[in-house]
């Protein structure tokens, strides 16, 4: 059922993804779309520190969709994630007439190695901003 398993992909431990998420900022919020395991455990959207804790608790290998056709399940660590991140709509031209100025949210396509479900991890910059604004107002 998983399209990721059929196509080019890398393997990464969920604890490595956890470390990468924390390195992006523990106050950054994220969504998960389509993973019964994570959505059953965490209320989304969710700040990076909470999601990272859950990923460490699960502690299983993930498969990460890659555009590189040479990606055939090689194990990677957190240092490769910056180059493998995609952007929601980031590569699509606006109405066919050029690229957009606004950098859209980052995302990854994942699949747990032992699961048939593909899912997305998507940055939620609107919630991140709203939460930061709220903290600023409280000060």
């Amino acid at each position, binding site marked *: 059922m998983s399209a990721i398993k059929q196509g080019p992909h890398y393997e990464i431990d969920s604890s490595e993804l956890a470390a990468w998420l924390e390195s992006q900022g523990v106050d950054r919020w994220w*969504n998960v779309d389509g993973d*019964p395991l994570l959505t*059953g455990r965490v*209320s*989304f*959207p969710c700040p990076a520190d909470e999601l990272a804790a859950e990923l460490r608790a699960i502690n299983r290998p993930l498969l990460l969709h890659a555009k590189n056709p040479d990606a055939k399940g090689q194990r990677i660590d957190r240092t490769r994630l910056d180059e493998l991140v995609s952007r*929601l709509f980031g590569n699509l031209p606006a109405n066919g007439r050029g690229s*957009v100025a606004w950098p859209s949210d980052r995302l990854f396509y994942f699949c747990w190695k032992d699961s048939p479900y593909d899912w997305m991890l998507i940055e939620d910059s609107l*919630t991140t901003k*709203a939460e930061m604004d709220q903290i600023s107002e409280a000060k």
Partner: protein
Amino acid sequence: MPRRPTDLTRKIKDILQHVSPLPDEARVPILHYRRTGTDIWGSLAYIEDVFQRVNDAEQADISLYPAVMNRHLGRLYGMTLVNLVETFERLLKELAAECVDCLAPFVVDDRFNIFRIQGSGLAAHFGTATLGKSLCESATWLDCEEINERFRKLLSDPFHAGTFYLFPKPPGQQPERERWRYEPMSIIWQIRHTAVHNVGVITQSDGVKLRLLAKEPVTAPRVLAPTRDDIRYLKRFLDETAAICNERVCLRLAELLTLLHTATPTLFVPQETANRVASCFRIAAQVAGATGVMPTD
């Protein structure tokens, strides 16, 4: 050229054929709740991203007027609000149904009389649904007092009135630490009523009810225009409340099953029942000394 006639009755009936299977999480109320809530939020985030992308496009001729975008987003937030509240309502039904199914073989008192169901309604469930679903699915669960009454009776000690309040009401109902939820939950039910039955218009009568519930001025008539932050906080409140309801119902059910087992030790095998409770609620509760084993995800 005249428009071709369309069989609209057929088209309406066709809606019933456009369905998809339930997600795996539907077997467990709290997982079903979280899955749907996450899906709703995900849809919203997706549309917001598309809107933002169009709005920020370099070409002025394809960008949206902010007022137009905000109007459409406001409509979407209103629909999201209703969806989130109804997801929570479904959780309450499913939790109650699990309790009915866990208790039905072991109780003979009048606890199930709290559910009003007509014979034809029961017949419609016969053969496929569980007793819990047949008793709990057809009713609405949109009023804190009514919900309290159902869970209180459902989870009472045998032949007693019961003291379990899912949404304990100030000043006397227990637990005290949960009393604060009664007010926001009641306001949420009323907002949902306004959104569903009056397309978001706070009528004069809605305004009076909301004023009494919120204990502060509410202007009417007005149209509800929820913001993204409103939806975010609503979801956070409902998510937290869902987790607490799931835990409290689970622990009270386990306590009641323990009581029933103490009175009649041959009634059931504690480990089997504890495992069933753990599976239904995803909490490793204890039943008659046996700790439920959680299924692996």
